[in-house]
């Protein structure tokens, strides 16, 4: 791949960011993190109070990429078949009846799993299995999901009654957990000015084709990353383990389980994608640091003491971040 091609793809993603920003006010970091997930072909968990633009963000992204977009509103009575599809009895022209697989909304490129914690664990598991395998099996038949395939699940952190929080093992399957904060006053005014209170993504134009996205994904996968950076990422993740020598005090005191190796992979892949989006030609320490929080925040399991004392995970992670220096000896 030539530099020209690399620069072209980077420019395309820059345009994509600008296109999304024309609809989404604020949330620059969130947009970037969503695109990082997209470039890595991974799934994201968005957490924020209702009305912050989670659905709008995903819909805008789908439109800007020209990809098939599906939204699944998770409710307690949502069944797995409602997501993956079901076999239905169909009568043909000759009057013969046969079963035919009716594809569910999961057969899309971008899926918004809205309020995933409202569905029952059974339904959640069906989605998560599809996310992991990138294929579904119905009545012995396996259906491959088309690339790119990306699930953006949202969670409402305030309405916990009647919800089924995702188990840690399933949360770990999400590449990033992106926290959406409330917009600032200025951003809120800008939202009112630009949209007039009506959430519409109609004006979004497609800036990237599916092929270009897949090409960018392949490029990011082989993005040059020096070994000291991999070591730095590994040390960061390793320091979240309470038994680790490098673990800071908060980790030793309040963490039950640290981040998994999948977190280290997320850190490196995310850093590569971040470097790509930043217009660089190699991964940097700054890229690792930029994706440190979204990669690890949902992968730290506090112990009873940590939960009882209400120690926030991001506080623990901040100590890890400050404790581990890039140039320290192994």
């Amino acid at each position, binding site marked *: 791949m030539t*530099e020209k091609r690399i620069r072209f793809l980077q420019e395309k993603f820059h345009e994509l960011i600008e296109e999304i920003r024309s609809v989404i006010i604020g949330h620059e970091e969130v947009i970037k993190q969503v695109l990082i997930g997209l470039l890595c072909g991974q799934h994201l968990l968005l957490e924020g109070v209702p009305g912050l633009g989670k659905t709008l963000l995903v819909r805008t992204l789908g439109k800007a990429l020209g990809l098939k977009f599906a939204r699944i509103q998770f409710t307690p009575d949502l069944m797995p078949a409602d997501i993956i599809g079901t076999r239905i009895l169909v009568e043909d022209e000759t009057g013969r009846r046969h079963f035919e697989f009716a594809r569910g909304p999961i057969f899309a490129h971008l899926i918004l799993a809205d309020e995933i914690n409202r569905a029952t664990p059974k339904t959640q598991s069906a989605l998560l299995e599809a996310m992991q395998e990138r294929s579904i099996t119905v009545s012995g038949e396996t259906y491959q999901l088309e690339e790119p395939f990306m699930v953006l699940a949202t969670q409402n952190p305030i309405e916990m009654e009647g919800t089924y929080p995702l188990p840690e093992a399933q949360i770990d399957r999400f590449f990033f957990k992106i926290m959406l904060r409330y917009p600032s006053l200025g951003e809120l005014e800008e939202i009112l000015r630009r949209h007039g209170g009506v959430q519409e993504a109609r004006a979004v134009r497609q800036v990237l084709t599916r092929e270009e996205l897949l090409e960018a994904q392949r490029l990011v996968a082989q993005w040059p990353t020096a070994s000291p950076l991999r070591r730095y990422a590994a040390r960061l993740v390793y320091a979240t383990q309470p038994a680790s020598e490098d673990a800071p005090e908060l980790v030793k005191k309040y963490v039950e389980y640290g981040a998994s190796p999948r977190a280290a992979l997320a850190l490196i892949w995310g850093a590569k994608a971040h470097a790509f989006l930043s217009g660089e030609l190699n991964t*940097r320490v700054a890229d690792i640091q930029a994706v440190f929080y979204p990669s690890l925040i949902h992968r730290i399991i506090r112990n009873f003491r940590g939960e009882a004392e209400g120690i926030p995970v991001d506080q623990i992670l901040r100590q890890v971040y400050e404790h581990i220096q*890039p140039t320290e000896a192994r």
Partner: protein
Amino acid sequence: MPSFEAIRASLERRQRLVHGLELASWALLGSLGATVLMLVGGAVGIWKAVPFFAWMLGNLCIGAGAFVIGWLRPVNTVELLFRADRQLRSQERLVTLYELKLGYGPKEFLPLLERQLEQLPVNVAYALPLSLWVRRCWIVIALLAVVCLGMTSLVPLSSVFVHPETSRSQTASSDLESQRAFQLLEWLRTPSTELTHKLSSMRERLERARAALALDPSDPRARATLQHLHAELIQEQQRLAPPPPPIEEDQSKGSGPEASLVEGSPHELRSSQPRGSETQELAQLLQSLRSVSETAPHLSPEELQKLLEKLRETNPTAATLAEQLWQLTQNPEEFRERLEEILRELEARQALREHLEHLQRELESVLAQTEPPVGREGSPEDPLNTTTSREEGPSQARSEGQRSSASETHGVQSLESSEEGEPSAGTGRGTAPLDPEAISDLPDLSQWRERALPVPGARSEDLEILFEIVTMELPQDAESSLSPVLVQIDYAKVEALLDLFEIPEELRDAVRRYFLSLSNQP
């Protein structure tokens, strides 16, 4: 802009330098700290002092060794480039490029990153700076070095060669012993071989003069040679004699200014001390050192110290000298070798001294045989025995006093012997009144002066001597009594000038005779 390889090479060199300086700083910090402790310990007398060259050389060796070891430490290039990247804020391009060159990662990124690197200004010193700790270490090292130098400079310079520190803590008497020992060592340092050669040449000249006198007892040239040899012998004896011992400060000061007025300066006191005692001292020193040299190889350092302590009671100078040698060497073998060298030198000087005395006796006998009969009353004695004239009576002493005052005016010391019969230092010049007989033989010197002055190639100093000779008051009448006009003569120079100047043949003998006649006068 430099290529990546050039940047990498310079970074590696810098890293080696930093490693070297780091290790050297640690090593020097330790060694200089130890040096300070040793110097302090030496100064307060806990242990022996460390000589300047020893600690300086030791620390330099330690520092240089540590630096070399640090320089040779293996360099992890990946780590190095990563650190440089972080320091230079070069977005980890150096390390990524290096790994891409090694084959890790997609090759297509290589030219892209290389192009990016070309725009990167690389300051190697900024990329790999010396840590603050190391810089502080070097400041401390500099301070320690200054402290060490300061402590060493308190020690006298002589301590560089001979043991330095002990004298400070010793009493005044041991100070004198140390000074005396050092004085003797310095005296022994002057090689005696030169004197041996000179002695043999003097003997040859004596033999030649003696042979010439055998043929012609009145050969003036041979007699002049003998006179000159005599003067030289006295000089050499002076040089060969051991230096006089130092005078204790309290003693030299006396009880006040009056005492110094009466007793004279320390120098005078020193020169007035009899020479025989020094010769005796030298003999005792030789004997004591010989005994130490014979016993030392069989003794341990502790036993040797005891022996020296015992020796101090009988011969403190020998004990101090041996002790200084021991502190200088710290090795029984080397100690013995040095001691042997000193003993050899002492013995050689003793032998030379005897030889000189023998030669002097021979010379005196030859001079006595060739002495022309003295027909004048009150004529001066032989210049070798001028001291006897001082004891003859007040009237003669007065006339002598006039003479010696005149010689002092000219800055010339007349030949005189010590009480032991040993001659004191002299310049080789003599003083003598005019001999009327010799003058009567002299042709018209005023004419000769006019002819001799424009001699080419003559030095002003030489001309001055001739000028003194030819402008003296010459009596017209040989019978008339002479006023005691003093003439200053350097015999060797006269001889040389006679050969050098183009003095007419018919005048040369007359001039020589004239000078020789002067030499017969006391």
